[in-house]
Every structure is written in C-alpha cells, then in structure tokens.
C-alpha cells in the first residue's frame, strides 16, 4: 500500500535509496544535495540500512571510491551537485568506461563563477557527454520514482552503466510536496538482488580493471560504449512498464503534455515544466493549441521519438536552464538535431531562463507562448536565442 507523505525532494530520494539499501555509499556535502546524504548517514547510524559509507574528503575521491567499490562487486550510490559534479568530471568518464552501474542523484545547481548555490542545469549539462545515463525529474515524486527505476536500468545486464537522476536544486530538493512512497518490500522486490558482473572480489578469477589502450583499440571501445547506449531506451520503457504495474504511475522517454494536436509547444526540463503546464492549460482555454514536451531520458537522447512528437507543431521554443556561451542552449541543440531530418519541421527558438535559481514565473511562459503563437501565424523569428527574465 502506498503511503502519502509531505516531504522534500532530498528526503524522497534519500528514502528511495534507503529502501534499496545498497552495499556502499560515498558521502560528501555540497549544497543543495547535503541534506540528502546526511539523511542517508542517519539511516546508517540508526541501523535502517546495512550500507557501508565512505566519508570521503572530496567528490573526486567519492567517485573514485564508488568506482573501486562497484568494481569490487556490489551496489553503489552517491549524490552530488554543481561544483561537486564538476570535480568528479574525470571520474565520471571512468565509471562509464568501466561499465559500472553507480546510481547518483544530482541535485542541479549553477556553476561558479560567480558562486551561486541555486538551481540550474549547468552541472548536469556539463556532464552529458560522460557516458552516464541521465534521467530528469520534475518533482519529488518523479525524483523518487526515477531513483528507484535507475537501479533496474543501470544494472540491467545488457546495460551496466552509471545513472544520474537529476532534480532541481532547492525548488525540488528543499520544497515540501505531497507524494506517495511505495512499501519498503515493494521497492526491494522491484529492484531485486544485485547481480555481479566481473567483480574484483572474485579472487578465483583475478581481473585487471583500467588498462592502457592506445590507437589499436580505443576507437573500438568507444564504439562499443555507444552501442550500449542504443539499448537503453528499450530498457527504460520496460522498467517503466513494470513500475507502472507497481505504482500506477506512468513514465516514458519524455512526457507529452497536450501535444497531440498542438500548434505551438515548449520543450522544457524538470520543475519549470510544472509551471509551464498551468500556463498551457490557460492558453488551451483561450483556444490556443499549446502543448509541452518534457524530456525524461536526456542521455541517451530519444531523437526519433521526440521528432515524432513534435513533427506536427508549427513553432517550438526550447527552454534551457543552462547555457553554452557562444552556442545555443544544450537542450535546444538536441531538439534541432532531432527535427533536422524531418521534411517539414516547426520553427524553433531558444530561450535561456532561470540561471542561478532565477525564478521562472507563469508570466515567462505566457510571454514565450505568445511569441510562438505569432510565429505560428506566419510571424518572423526576431532572434533565435534569447535570455528570458533578464534585466536590461
């Protein structure tokens, strides 16, 4: 039986991790993630889990230790944000290159400089090419559900890849929401026993992890790594199907909101999607066919499916809570890549919003939907990439 609770995103994730009860956990504080791992530390201290923690001296060592632990053979978790994820960057590639299914909630936060502790997506976007699976979450419920599903996805024997579960710093990590917990036993059964794959602790069959591989085979290894990513979508959908049976909550590669007959659409990640949906409802009431696409699986990116979902729209705004200075927003680049192959495709614009935790308000969504409406009626695109809610 599901239990209805009022909790923060951090608390929800910490409880998902508690219910899974992994073997080893790397713990290091960083705002706004800190609260998640300190909750986990208290689960350990109070015997709610049997996990062994590693209270590391940096995120770099956290990921290094998690890699060591995962290679040794067992279920491993950690969590981070922002600078912490940036400090891990080198090791993220090694976790995926070694095919180790480490599960890591990333509480999204801006990157320095200037120093800022609030929510934006610069951290996880900076890690999009590290070979990790990335699953994004709108609210506490999705963060919880995605964290549980992440174990099944990453540990799938055809996949064996690390997974980041992204949720917005403060907006989700620290806001109390109504949500439902599954029973501990249900989660345990859903996730199942950890299956070992090439464990170092198998002393009878000594293995060497991390060889030097030069021009003769490196290219082939990277090709093989890409191949694994091509299998992820199907696994994500299979796991989502099972999860729906258990929870009644439906998940896909992305969420399509009133998109079937939409003329104009927003593509937007995480918490800001919730705000946008309300505004879309208002536009619908006024007779404007507006819709929204909220990516869930960002790596691997579901290009064909996203193109199929957006192909009948006339104008689309891709909203990025991260920037690529001198380039377009990272999500915009994915959507343009997805749509390029269509014979007829919508007009695309890109808005950068909410950097460093700047509020994203319904009025912002209205502004964008009005602009899209003009474009859809044949208006010209004035500027492709623009900053939303920025003071002149």
């Amino acid at each position, binding site marked *: 039986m599901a239990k209805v609770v009022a909790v923060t995103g951090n608390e929800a994730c910490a409880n998902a991790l508690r219910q899974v009860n992994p073997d080893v956990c790397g713990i290091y504080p960083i705002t706004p993630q800190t609260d998640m791992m300190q909750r986990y530390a208290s689960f350990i201290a109070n015997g709610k889990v049997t996990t062994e923690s590693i209270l590391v001296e940096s995120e770099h*060592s956290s990921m290094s*230790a998690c890699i*060591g*632990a995962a290679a040794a053979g067992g279920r491993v978790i950690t969590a981070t944000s922002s600078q912490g994820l940036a400090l891990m960057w080198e090791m993220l590639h090694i976790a995926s290159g070694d095919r180790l299914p480490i599960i890591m909630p990333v509480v999204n936060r801006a990157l320095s400089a200037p120093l800022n502790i609030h929510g934006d997506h610069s951290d996880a976007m900076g890690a999009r090419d590290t070979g990790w699976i990335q699953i994004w979450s709108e609210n506490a419920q999705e963060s919880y559900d995605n964290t549980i599903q992440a174990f099944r996805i990453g540990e799938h024997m055809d996949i064996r890849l690390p997974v980041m579960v992204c949720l917005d710093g403060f907006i989700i990590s620290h806001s109390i929401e109504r949500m439902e917990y599954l029973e501990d036993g249900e989660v345990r059964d859903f996730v199942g026993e950890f299956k070992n794959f090439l464990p170092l602790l198998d002393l009878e069959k000594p293995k060497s*992890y991390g060889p030097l591989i030069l021009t003769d085979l490196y290219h082939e290894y990277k090709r093989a790594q890409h191949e694994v990513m091509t299998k992820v979508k199907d696994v994500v959908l299979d796991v989502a199907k099972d999860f729906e049976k258990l929870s009644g909550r439906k998940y896909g590669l992305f969420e399509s909101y009133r998109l079937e007959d939409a003329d104009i659409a927003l593509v937007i990640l995480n918490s800001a999607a919730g705000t946008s949906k309300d505004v879309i409802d208002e536009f619908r009431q006024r007779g404007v066919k507006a819709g929204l696409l909220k990516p869930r699986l960002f790596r691997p990116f579901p290009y064909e499916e996203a193109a199929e979902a957006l192909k009948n729209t006339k104008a689309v705004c891709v909203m990025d809570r991260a920037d690529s200075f001198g380039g377009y927003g990272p999500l915009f680049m994915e959507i343009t890549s997805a749509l390029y192959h269509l014979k007829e495709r919508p007009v695309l614009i890109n808005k950068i919003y909410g950097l460093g935790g700047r509020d994203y308000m319904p009025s912002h969504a209205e502004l964008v939907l009005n602009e899209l409406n003009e474009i859809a009626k044949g208006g010209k695109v004035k500027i492709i990439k623009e900053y939303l809610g920025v003071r002149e």
Partner: protein
Amino acid sequence: MATGLTLKELSKKEDRFTHGHRMCAGCGAPTIVKMVLLATDYPVIAANATGCLEVSSCISEYTAWKIPWIHTAFENAAATISGVETMYRSLKKQGKIDKDVKFIAFGGDGGTYDIGLQSLSGAMERGHDMLYVCYDNGAYMNTGIQRSSATPLGADTTTCPAGDIIPGKLRVRKNLTKIMAAHNIPYAAQASPSHWMDLMKKVRKAHEFIGPKFMNILSPCNRGWRSQTNDAITLSRLGVNSCYWPLYEIEDGVTKITYTPKDKIPVADFMKPQGRFKHLFAPANEWLLKKVQEEVDKEWEKLKKQAECGC
C-alpha cells in the same frame, strides 16, 4: 603459515607480478612490486595510480598482474582502493564473503606526494585496512622526468633544469613518510629494494596491523637519474648508506631506525653516478652540493633523536 623470509623459501612461491611487463630494463619499481607481493601471504587486491608501473604492467589485453588489480586515474589510487576495501567490508558484514583479503595501493611519487596527496590523506584518516606503497623515484618519470615534491635538492629535471642561472631544484624534498605518520596511522615505514629482507619484513609487519599503513620505497630510475641500467640496487644501497634514504619505521607513533650504516658515506657517493646531479660537481655549484650534505645530515640527526626519545 607465513613463508620463511629466506630467498630459498620465497623462490618457491608463485610470482604474482609476471614477466612480460614493459617497464624499462633495470627499473627499480617491478622489483619493489615483486618483493611487496612476495612478502604478502594473503589474497590481495591492488590499486595502481596512473604512472610508469601502471601503463607498463597492463596494456590492452596484457596484464602482468595475477591478482585482482584496478587502475582508475592518477590522483586517486588511495581513494579507489578504499572503495574496494569498503565493498569488501560491506559484503563480509552481510556474510557474502568470508576470506581475509589484504588491500594494497601502488603509486609513484607524482601520484602520491603531489596530485594524490589529498586522496591519500583522506583514506589514511578514514582508517581503511590498506597498505599504500609509494615507489619514489623522485620525479614524474612517466611523462619525461619533471620535478615533483619528491625531487631531491639540486636535481636536474626537465622542469627544474640545471641552467646557467638556476642549478636545478632549489627546494628540499617533502618528508612524506613523516606526513603519513602524522595521520596517527598504526604503521609507516621507509624501505629500499637493496635491503630486501628489511623491506619484506616491513610489508609483513604492515599487514598485521588493522588500519591504514604506508610504505615509502626508494625506486631508482635509470632514465630519470641518468645512471646505468644495472645499478638500481647499487644506487638504492648508496642512498641508504649515505642516510639520504634512511630505513626506519614508525609503529604506533614510535620511531625505530631499522638499519644504521656502519660507515655513513658522503651523499656525494650516492649522487656522483647519477647524471641528474652532474652539475653539482662543477666548482660553481659546490655550495649546493654542500647544502645537500647539510640537509641529509640534519634530517638524519633529527631522525636519530626521534628514535632515541622513543617518539
């Protein structure tokens, strides 16, 4: 039952680090690895920092390691093995593994004194049951002999070259063995492959403590030291006999010198066969050679006092 520490007995053991590795001819590091693993009478898992030993011992499908081994990056061998050890403890607690396993990390001085110092310090403080072995050749040899904080005073490296104005490295080495002991770990020691019995006894002793242990082992590099391919053992012996590299251990905070040379030789005897110190024998640099001797004497006297007072 532990194998007797005689070469005859030890030679009957199977090599856990095999030939076919691609370290340079005459390198000190493989001999150190061989000795450390021969002295270890337990199942053992090793981590390795990026460096000469790592790139030469595991290339493509060829690994010289017959034990489980992991390399992840340069600055984190201690953190990596701490993860392996923690998983072992977790699984042991859950009854999923029952063997007694030892954990060793190998790193060069670049990966230990410099870029890996933070992760090493963290792992030592956390108290993992592991032995960290630094094979100290006194520079970043794998990238082509760049200065590290282990490079001795006066040495010529590619980033502190002996030039007309600056005669090589002007700073003294960091005393890493003492820094490690300052973590209040149960055992820290310095060893040299020339004194194989002393080295192996220290490894044996280290394994008997539960918790973090550290060994710093002098590892001659004929490329970086600009010496001969046949003199790794001879040079490490000269290093010991000049007290440039004293053999000692710090057990639960108590220092003990494990070998005192009968006749302490001038440090110049250790330096003379090495091209990296050649410039110090020019008249203009006599002052620096003198300073090197003074530094060695000062450190040796300090160490003796430390040993005498039992602290």
